[in-house]
């Protein structure tokens, strides 16, 4: 009775119910395989991501400042002028070294996979996901740079993940460390198939490999090319732990990714015109399924 009489309480109860209902429907519908953003979301993500990017560069500048100025405050007053000159030179050398390192990294990235018939787009990491449950990184390339949804992302070390969410100027990559990312993998030496899933912050796990497969520690795991997302033959990581139970028909294999995600700065997005064709094929198949379902209902 109190609920009906009190206007505020009634309004609160109705709003709570509506919001909870919409959210629960959203939870049920949410999938972590692919996310197509609306125009409104595009605009907002494109507005916030440059801020994330600038924080990254400010941190780098502040780091340089602390390394190269604050640390030298205790230098003798008599040597201030000399110290300044030395600092300037050191700064320049540091900048050249950084440039040289960056050049080497970029060259290595661009040289990687020369044989692969994919167009490559170089991108820089600007931020990570706000929730530690998801191993997602944000890069500074988007639709305007030709990036496509579900395009594979790699470095010279190996596989990073695929494009999960895309705006005009930025993209989110679902990495191989994320439990929602499933990669069809192949143990290079014995050619046995399995599904690789993110397991924790540093490892992935390869499932559904027959117990009989003679896998050993240190075996290299590569992408199999199945699944229409990743090209065949990209290194995913190495086997670091094998779990065979005394029962069952499969074994679980823990994989240490080839990419050091803690030090990831640049990535390469692999693009192919075939991707668009594949997308259309998938959409046509989905449409056929929907049509068939609708016919059955009728």
């Amino acid at each position, binding site marked *: 009775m109190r609920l009906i009489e009190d206007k505020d309480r009634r309004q609160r109860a109705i709003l709570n119910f509506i919001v909870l209902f919409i959210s629960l429907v959203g939870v049920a519908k949410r999938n972590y395989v692919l996310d197509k953003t609306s125009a409104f979301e595009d605009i907002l993500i494109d507005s*916030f991501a440059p801020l994330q990017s600038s924080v990254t560069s400010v941190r780098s500048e502040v780091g340089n400042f602390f390394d190269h100025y604050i640390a030298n405050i205790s230098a003798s007053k008599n040597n201030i002028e000399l110290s300044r000159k030395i600092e300037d030179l050191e700064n320049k050398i540091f900048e050249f070294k950084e440039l040289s390192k960056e050049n080497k990294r970029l060259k290595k990235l661009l040289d990687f996979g020369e044989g692969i018939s994919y167009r490559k787009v170089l991108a820089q990491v600007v931020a*990570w996901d706000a929730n530690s449950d998801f191993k997602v990184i944000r890069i500074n390339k988007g639709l305007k740079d030709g990036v496509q949804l579900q395009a594979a992302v790699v470095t010279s070390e190996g596989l990073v993940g695929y494009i999960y969410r895309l705006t005009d100027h930025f993209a989110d990559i679902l990495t191989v460390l994320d439990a929602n990312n499933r990669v069809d993998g192949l143990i290079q030496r014995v050619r046995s198939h399995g599904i690789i899933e993110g397991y924790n912050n540093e490892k992935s796990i390869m499932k559904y490999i027959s117990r009989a497969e003679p896998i050993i520690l240190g075996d290299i795991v590569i992408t199999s090319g199945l699944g229409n997302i990743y090209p065949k033959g990209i290194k995913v990581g190495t086997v670091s732990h094998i779990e065979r139970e005394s029962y069952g028909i499969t074994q679980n294999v823990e994989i240490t990714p080839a990419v050091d995600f803690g030090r990831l700065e640049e990535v390469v997005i692999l693009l192919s015109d075939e991707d668009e064709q594949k997308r259309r094929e998938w959409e046509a198949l989905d449409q056929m399924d929907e049509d068939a379902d609708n016919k059955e209902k009728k």
Partner: protein
Amino acid sequence: MKGNFAHLIRPLGITLLILIVLEILSTAFLPMVGLTKYRIPFNVLIILYMGFKLETPFTSVMILILQYTHSFFSIEGWEMGTVAGVMICIIISYLKDLLHLTSSVITIVVTQIFQTLWFLIVSSLIYLKTDDFSYIAQKFWRFLPESIVISLLAPLIFGVLDAIWKTEGESGLGSSV
């Protein structure tokens, strides 16, 4: 102010700006200094504040707006956090006469308790969706340090939010805006 959403727009806008700044720091600054494993969930802290301090029928709508803003920084989306936030605010509304945020220590402890409740609600939803308990076990080990940091920051952030929402001096959970 209680029943008029127009009065909430200004403080809500400032709160959203604060959330955006904190999210940017959390997503860009922390990983760049090597903290890629943990992230500080400031959205949870702000939603808990709304539950504790604001008594308006529009709390659930504000939670939805906050979570939607959070979703631009995370692929988590807005849904699970909204469910957890609204449910926790309903629970808080029943307990408001029992709990009073009279000191920093109490604020820290109460925030920790309700963060644990948040974890349980979100974990239940994840379990219902994935049927995978190992994922929740891993999430728990990340939740521990993250929630402790959030609880320790609670008195400070609540102070700032008190100034924005003009709830200074009203320390009880039942305080009205």
